[in-house]
């Protein structure tokens, strides 16, 4: 198959699709950085850094709007079909998810800003540990989703879609541990609530990463795989066989 953004007799269309693809990747990198910065700000309880993330969220919002403007323009002028149509629709959907990832980063930054106002004690290493473990997982998922988008590789997207819901399981165990902390010392209560909110935000980042992978899969394979595995995931049933043959098709 031709690369999804190339090979048109009208070369300008190639350029426009490439530009759209690059903008989406750029937005993806920005949102990834937002999450990473939010985690670093939380780790360091740095209120100033947290404020910077909140400011940066507007940039991401503007990107979403301007990418969608490009999408509407391309549909109006090029009347795309088949792969072109799927590329354009998938990117439009992807930027919606990316914008929400940035919102989750801003949510974490907001909580950090509250924690860092100095009027309370810091949450302590033990409480933060779960958050940071989940943060690494969420970032890893985002990076793999963006790599699948970058290379338009359905095998990589598949890996992310079929993977068992580590984030959900991690959230549940983090929730249990935080509950224990609260029971041990009631003064932990405020921190625990905030950190549960952060964990929830990170779990959502993972969900958005999976959505991005699903749109990449649709873009490449022309099949909509949303909600196919939700039942399994909700029951916590592992959906990946680690002994499976690697899916070598690059689509």
């Amino acid at each position, binding site marked *: 198959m031709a690369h999804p953004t190339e090979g048109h007799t009208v070369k300008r269309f190639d350029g426009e699709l490439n530009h759209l693809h690059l903008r989406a990747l750029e937005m993806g990198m920005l949102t990834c950085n937002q999450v990473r910065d939010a985690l670093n700000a939380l*780790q360091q309880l740095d209120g100033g850094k947290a404020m910077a993330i909140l400011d940066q969220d507007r940039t991401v919002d503007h990107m979403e709007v301007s990418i969608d403007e490009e999408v509407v323009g391309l549909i109006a002028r090029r009347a795309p079909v*088949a792969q072109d149509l799927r590329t354009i629709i998938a990117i439009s959907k992807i930027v919606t998810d990316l914008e929400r990832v940035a919102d989750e980063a801003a949510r974490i930054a907001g909580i950090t800003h509250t924690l860092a106002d100095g009027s309370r004690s810091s949450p302590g290493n033990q409480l933060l540990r779960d958050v940071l473990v989940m943060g690494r997982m969420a970032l890893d998922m985002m990076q793999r989703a963006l790599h699948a988008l970058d290379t338009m590789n359905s095998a990589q997207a598949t890996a992310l879609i079929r993977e068992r819901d580590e984030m959900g399981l991690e959230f549940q165990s983090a929730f249990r541990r935080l509950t224990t902390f609260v029971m041990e010392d009631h003064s932990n209560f405020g921190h625990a609530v905030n950190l549960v909110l952060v964990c929830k935000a990170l779990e959502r980042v993972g969900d958005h990463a999976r959505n991005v992978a699903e749109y990449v899969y649709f873009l490449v394979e022309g099949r909509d795989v949303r909600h196919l595995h939700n039942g399994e995931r909700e029951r916590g049933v592992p959906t990946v066989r680690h002994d499976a043959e690697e899916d070598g098709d690059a689509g």
Partner: protein
Amino acid sequence: MNANREVLCMEPELTETPIGVATPVTPTTDTMPRRASVGRDVRNTVGTITVPNPRMEARDVNVFYGEKHALKGVSIDIGAKEVVAFIGPSGCGKSTFLRCLNRMNDTVSGCRVAGQISLDGSDIYDRKVDVVPLRAQVGMVFQKPNPFPKSIYENVAFGPRIHGLVNHRNELDELVEASLRRAGLWEEVKDRLDQPGTGLSGGQQQRLCIARTIAVSPDVILMDEPCSALDPIATAKIEELIDELSQNFSIVIVTHSMQQAARVSQRTAYFHLGHLIEVGSTRDIFTSPQHELTEDYITGRFG
């Protein structure tokens, strides 16, 4: 305030991990619906050529213009009351195949047709078949409107009269009016039925030709680029007409406008250098075609 805060379990990868680091998770292939992708070198027809309720069935149709093998083993059904669009670049054989469906190729010298084409189960290339009634059953509308140099009324009345479909003048009047109404032309011409058909605008002439075709109650209507000489307004009227006519007739339309094929048809067939490459529902063809040649053509990737 936190400058000397110890680094927790945050590892370097949080700041340095490049995108797409390999992970231990391997994908599985089961239950993930995949698109069948067929390579450019494959010439067998991809997709379903049959329909549950066929009016016409073409099987292994080959056409030769002298030495030139113009159509290579084309098999496809034309269903009842459906619109099928044939698309493909010039010289791909789509018009040649269309003309096979009512034996218009008989008149082309040096043209030889092999294979089976049947209408409601009977072979239209049988020796006993008279092509005149066949061409009433399988009517044709051409690229360039070609009204007879007669009055509007006579253009429509001509077919029913020679085929002996009416007995009285009143019946003929009614049939002419009904046909013109179905072609969406009646209101525009009812006060000048005695004027020459050639005096109408291009779009009106094309609708007159459609009225002429449907006046003889065909089973199938073949349209060879019926809108290529028309402006967008006349084109829209013809497309609306195709939609209405498909409630009673099977329609096969050859068009160079892929958007027109996407708008008017329920099934689309893509031809390439004499081969029927892919047949499928129009929706599938235009969102997720299986054959790379189809994909290349409809997305504007022309070699």
